[in-house]
């Protein structure tokens, strides 16, 4: 009888919450429109996934067939676009961003090549933006390595070896790189999944915060305790928002991922179960945080400022071990941290429950802590 009553109460609260959300334009914007719009908008920024044709300039002090061949090969590399030829390495072009690098081919470049003398080309790189300078550097190194390879091979061929023998002799140890999970080393492939999870985390956090702050503004919180009890209300809210956002989780992995060429290698049952844990922990985290705000405006303002720090200290872009202990502790307290780690392993490596246990335990602990903390907070609010 008691269980039946609890279930009835939970259904009533879910229906009320759903009604409240549908009636509130601000909540509709945060909980419905924002996840849909942002998922398309942010993913499409990286539609081209990799950057190509980084502009660079060349100073050719040799002006021979070999130096022109080097320039042609540099321009042919997909990462590089030779925009201009200069008389001297004019740093002004780097400073004002016209080019991202300048390569200087020295005088007597061809003569030194032919005489097998020490030959050095100088590269000036603008390293103020890492992705650009990395790609340019990679392109230059690949081009020069291929020329070096040709020169060494021709040297051995001149000594009577066959082409294949020469190739082997010129490079005794060969390196083969096999990319796992992000075959093209693409920035889009790297960032899109994390951005999608961040959109879920932040819109849910903001939505919940607005909803709870609204309940405080309208004294609805007092009615909760009187009519249904705190734990029943918290459970019902948890179920409602978790179910609502599970739909987005599936939508992102089934529709958005293939649309933008991202693979999902995981098992959908694992996705759903771990997704419940993630969304549940975000709901209670949101309830706990927002219980400190009397106005939903303040809740919205504060939550809006947290998106970038939550992403940056999650360990997704910068290793957690490299962060100070205080930041690391803060990071562990946010559900995004364990889940982005879990989601990356699940979606990219196809990890199963066994591999995801540390993150699953982490999420369960966060749910329990924030559920309890929310209970205490709301209990105290009622006393006031």
């Amino acid at each position, binding site marked *: 009888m008691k269980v039946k009553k609890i279930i009835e109460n939970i259904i009533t609260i879910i229906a009320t919450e759903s009604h409240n959300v549908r009636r509130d*334009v*601000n909540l509709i914007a945060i909980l419905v429109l924002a996840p849909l719009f942002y998922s398309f908008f942010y993913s*499409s*920024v*990286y539609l081209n996934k990799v*950057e190509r*044709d980084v502009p660079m300039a060349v100073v050719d002090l040799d002006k021979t067939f070999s130096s022109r061949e080097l320039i042609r090969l540099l321009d042919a590399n997909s990462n590089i676009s030779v925009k201009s030829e200069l008389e001297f390495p004019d740093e002004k072009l780097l400073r004002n961003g016209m080019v991202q690098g300048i390569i200087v081919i020295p005088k007597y470049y061809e003569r030194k*090549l032919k005489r*097998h003398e*020490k030959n050095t*080309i*100088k*590269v000036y*790189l*603008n390293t*103020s*933006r*890492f992705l*650009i*300078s990395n790609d340019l550097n990679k392109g230059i*190194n690949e081009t020069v390595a291929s020329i*070096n390879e040709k020169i*060494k091979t021709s040297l051995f061929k001149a000594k009577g070896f066959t082409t294949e023998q020469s190739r*082997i*002799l010129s*490079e*005794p*140890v*060969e*390196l083969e*790189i*096999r*990319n*796992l*999970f*992000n*075959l093209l*080393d693409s920035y889009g492939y*790297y960032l899109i999944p994390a951005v999608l999870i961040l959109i879920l985390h932040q819109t849910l956090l903001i939505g919940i915060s607005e909803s709870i702050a609204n309940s405080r503004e309208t004294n609805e919180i007092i009615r909760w305790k009187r009519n249904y009890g705190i734990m029943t209300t918290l459970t019902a809210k948890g179920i409602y928002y978790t179910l609502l956002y599970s739909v987005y989780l599936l939508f992102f992995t089934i529709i958005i991922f293939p649309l933008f060429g991202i693979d999902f290698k995981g098992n959908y049952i694992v996705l759903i179960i771990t997704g419940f844990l993630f969304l549940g922990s975000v709901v209670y985290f949101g309830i706990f945080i927002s219980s400190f705000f009397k106005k939903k*405006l*303040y809740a*919205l*303002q504060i939550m*809006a*400022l947290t*998106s*970038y*720090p939550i992403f*940056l*200290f999650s360990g997704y*872009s*910068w290793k957690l071990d490299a*962060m*100070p202990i*205080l930041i690391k502790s803060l990071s562990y307290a946010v559900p995004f941290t364990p889940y982005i780690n879990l989601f*990356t*392993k699940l979606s*990219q*490596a196809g990890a199963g429950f066994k*591999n995801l246990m540390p993150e699953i335990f982490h999420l369960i602990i966060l749910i329990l802590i924030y559920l309890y903390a929310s209970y205490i907070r709301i209990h105290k609010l009622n006393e006031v």
Partner: protein
Amino acid sequence: MNLTTIYRVAKREFRGMSRISLFISTALPLILILIFNSIYEKEILRELPVVVYDCDRSELSRKLTRLIDASPSMEVIDSYFSIDRIEEAFKDGNTEAIFFIPSDFEHSIKRGLQSRIIVYKNSSNIITSNLILKDATTIIKTFSAGVLLNKFEKNSLSEKLAYPLVNPIKIETSSLYNPNYSYLSYLPPGLIAFTLQIAIMLSTSLIINSEFSGKTFGDLLSISHLDTALIFIGKFLPYFTLYFLMSLIILFIIFPLYNITMNGSYIILLLLFIILIAINVNSGILISSLYNNQLFATELTIFINTPAFILSGFTFPIWAMPSFHKALAYLMPFTYFLEAFIKIIRAGASIFDISSELAALVFFTIVTFAAANIALSYRINKSIR
């Protein structure tokens, strides 16, 4: 008379700020800025866990393993690894890369045959993946060159003569503006500017509509004698001053505190910050004059501002974005600000080097100023009617 009125409006604005509003507009952004700097305080990623799957277990393979372990970016956590565990190691997330050394590694090299090292790397994180690619390439190329050099020397060729044969063209790279590839010098300055912008917009997008929600607009009109310009200046100045002081704290306390190098002129930089603050306070007044609903005004501010950092081209170049995003990026003042900001602090750019960005920012200042004044005037007239 006018100055007294402006002073009264400004004083009223300061007094009207609640403690939590002050916290959100000033203390919270500063806390976030400290967090951004602390995240990257180690500047460079080091000792990423890698595994060596050594099937050869020879002297040469151990030498190669030691070279990998000695690299600053990698730490060998396991060198006697089982092939069955390769997939599991990546699924568990314990390693960033696995170096596979074949069983005939030393034998092949000694017999003059080619040997192949395979590196399986977790490229789902492009930052660690690029670092491993760079260092793995350097290590293997150096190792290979060493073997070749050894071979030439055995054929009585001196190192001086043999070296150009091993490495015919050498690249000498000068990394300008951030030579140590420090993440602390790279990311936090952009994030700090972005945090400042969003904080300004969040607080100023409520400065007119809050008068309506607090039913104090009539009082404001009577103090200002219905003069749009006086209200505008009186509302503009407190926030401008507040955020100018915050910019000074950022440049003269936070930057030196975290050793963020600053290569340009502080005067040009302050001029740039003044323009950024002016544009954002203008935009805030515009939004708060147009929309009475404070919650909606805040949501709109968040909606407009959140993509600004991503679209600025700071982390992913604008030229690689689709046309629609490219157009949006160029419609955002923050794109020009950040471009100029980075050029000044990193490359020590002069005012001439940033002239195009400066021109765009001045244009945005004029447009937002005009739009904010028109919107405020409309709001005042509507209220009077």
